[in-house]
């Protein structure tokens, strides 16, 4: 076949002499790709094209030769314009000559498809279109299955990418009542000793610790809220209530049960070893850190902050999150599905999982048509532009990966990865746009559940400045029966605790420390290790569409790739499932 290829920065002529020798040619087919004045609902004036000319020419030639082997043609001429091309002008001209029209039509159709996949030419963003920065590069519309193969990441690689790209948002000062679940962004130190003075731990009588007498005179009474400093002399006693501030240092408290009192006279019957005094600074010394930066504030931490009067701590901001479902087969859960339809379970799943993070969640549904979806998104500005996190649940009926990816790219997100070697959850997409992150979640609920815990939660931890979820070490309580899978698996499981049975101590770093008294040797388990053992029961699931296991799952067991099954008692890593109540 005779082939002619041109790349030019000049306008392509209105009339071009078609290729091929008159006489042999039975069909002349011409195609012009013209710059449209509208791109994704926005008016544009021009598009800029860039090429890798040396390679583009070779690639066009290679494609034409390959395709003409199946659809024999006589000649082809391709002219691609580069640089800024105004609306209405030709970006590409293709002319094909063949003996009969069928071959020419088939060759042209396939060539244009392949050109958009393989020829190194790029469409620079629509000029004057008001697109966001970063949205400058138009990605080709995709023929399913034809997209250049993307390199899938491993689970660990994906987590590392998410961690490094989810950076802490600016911290804010928030009243304690709104700080539950926020990540503390400053270390809170004790402003004074705790307790600030010596306090009695008993109802009784305070006397000098160095006073060995048995008989005292009661010189004062101190209630819990009193502050009556005085130096006690030998033979003097002060009536004190539990929690009362002692009048000076160097005292001990005799329990009221151990004295006889008659008016001001006091007779000590018995002394314990304990001084019954909580010493000043015993709990915390002034300046000592109480709650470290990076701590997710739970009820206890908030109580400490209140104790030291830090009522407006510096914390992570409340996240703004937008979640879209896609797919025409999805109907609201309140409706009855017709054949082919399914109820939307992902919206409530995502909303519930997000309860672990202080956030405002807005949810919606996107139509499958790309332009219509962009219009829906445009209608939600500025909510979308202000959102810290964008989540898109893929619909099975959409070419979900490409749809979501194109959508995120159009919104200015740079796609970091679009596939991971994981089961379930392989087609997970992650993108960033400045400090904002986005996920395209594979459509079925089990994949959502898995991807939320290892991926979305990692990003949310990064944005808030908190600790990302980490795998813990545990042990299978029954055999995990599986077929070998070339990908790693996160397997839903039920984590239970066993206490009070003989069990060998687990090696360090395991969670929790598996220990109980050894019935055979009589050896006692150290008190601080008597937490029982983690017993992971794998739950049944056959496909990523299975959802029945979700209600029981409170752990995700990591099953290595190509691992047929794991025996009862095998040590495994697992990710705890979020509690959905309180700070997660």
């Amino acid at each position, binding site marked *: 076949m005779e082939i002619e290829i041109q790349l030019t920065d000049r306008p392509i002529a209105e009339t071009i002499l078609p290729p091929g020798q008159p006489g042999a040619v039975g069909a002349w087919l011409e195609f012009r790709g013209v710059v449209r004045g509208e791109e994704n609902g926005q008016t544009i004036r021009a598009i800029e094209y860039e090429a*890798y000319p040396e390679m583009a020419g070779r690639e066009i030639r290679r494609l034409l030769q390959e395709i003409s082997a199946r659809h024999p043609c006589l000649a082809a001429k391709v002219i691609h314009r580069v640089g800024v091309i105004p609306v209405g002008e030709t970006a590409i001209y293709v002319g094909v000559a063949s003996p009969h029209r069928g071959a020419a039509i088939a060759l042209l159709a396939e060539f244009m498809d392949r*050109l958009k996949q393989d020829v*190194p030419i790029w469409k620079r963003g629509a000029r004057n279109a008001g697109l966001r920065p970063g949205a*400058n590069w138009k990605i080709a519309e995709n023929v399913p299955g034809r997209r250049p193969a993307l390199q899938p990441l491993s689970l660990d690689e994906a987590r590392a990418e998410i961690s490094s790209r989810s950076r802490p948002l600016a911290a804010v000062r928030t009243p304690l009542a709104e700080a539950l679940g926020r990540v503390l962004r400053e270390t809170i130190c004790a402003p004074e000793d705790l307790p600030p003075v010596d306090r009695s731990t008993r109802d009784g009588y305070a006397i000098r610790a160095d006073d060995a007498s048995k008989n005292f005179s009661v010189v004062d009474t101190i209630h819990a809220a009193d502050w009556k400093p005085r130096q006690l002399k030998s033979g003097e006693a002060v009536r004190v209530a539990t929690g009362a501030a002692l009048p000076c240092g160097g005292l001990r408290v005799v329990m009221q049960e151990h004295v006889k009192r008659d008016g001001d006279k006091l007779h000590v019957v018995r002394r314990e070893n304990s001084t019954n005094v909580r010493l000043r600074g015993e709990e915390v010394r002034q300046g000592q850190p109480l709650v470290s930066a990076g701590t997710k504030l739970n009820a206890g931490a908030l109580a400490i902050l209140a104790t030291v009067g830090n009522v407006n701590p510096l914390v992570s901001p409340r996240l703004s999150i937008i979640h879209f479902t896609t797919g025409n087969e999805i109907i609201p859960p309140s409706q009855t599905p017709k054949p082919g339809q399914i109820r939307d379970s992902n919206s409530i799943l995502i909303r519930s999982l997000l309860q672990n993070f202080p956030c405002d969640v807005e949810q919606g549904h996107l139509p499958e048509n790309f332009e219509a979806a962009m219009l829906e998104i445009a209608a939600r500005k500025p909510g979308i532009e202000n959102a810290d996190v964008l989540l898109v649940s893929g619909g099975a009926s959409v070419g979900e990966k490409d749809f979501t990816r194109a959508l995120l790219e159009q919104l200015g997100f*740079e796609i970091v990865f*679009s596939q991971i070697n994981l089961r379930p959850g392989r087609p997970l997409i992650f993108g960033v746009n400045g400090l904002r992150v986005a996920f395209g979640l594979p459509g079925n609920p089990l994949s959502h559940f898995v991807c939320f815990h290892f991926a979305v939660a990692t990003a949310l931890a990064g944005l808030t400045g908190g600790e990302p979820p980490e795998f813990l070490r545990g042990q299978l309580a029954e055999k995990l029966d599986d077929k070998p899978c070339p990908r790693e698996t996160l397997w839903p499981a039920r984590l239970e605790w066993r206490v009070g049975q003989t069990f060998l101590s687990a090696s360090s770093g395991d969670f929790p420390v598996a220990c109980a008294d050894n019935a055979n040797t009589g050896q006692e388990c150290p008190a601080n290790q008597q937490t029982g053992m983690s017993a992971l029961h794998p739950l049944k699931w056959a496909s990523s569409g299975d959802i029945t296991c979700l209600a029981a799952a409170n752990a995700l067991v990591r099953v290595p790739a190509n691992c047929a099954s794991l025996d009862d008692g095998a040590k495994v890593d697992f990710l705890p499932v979020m509690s959905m109540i309180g700070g997660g």
Partner: protein
Amino acid sequence: MRVLFFAQLKDATGCNAMELATASPLNTPQLWTELVQRFPALAAHRPNVRLARNWEYAAPDAIFADNDEVALLPPVSGG
């Protein structure tokens, strides 16, 4: 070897070409290591980028030698 960047990769690296001097030929992972070391922003693009060697798409097991022209190609959008 000469390494070319196109489209958004120009924005990521701030240049359209560079000379990469190496002691010995590189396989694909080694080449990426070298590139990401110089331009950390490239790491993000790696999953989407196809490599070309001497004006042809490079096979996964390609070896990149000193006198090669290497190009990093983000997803294309011509036509």
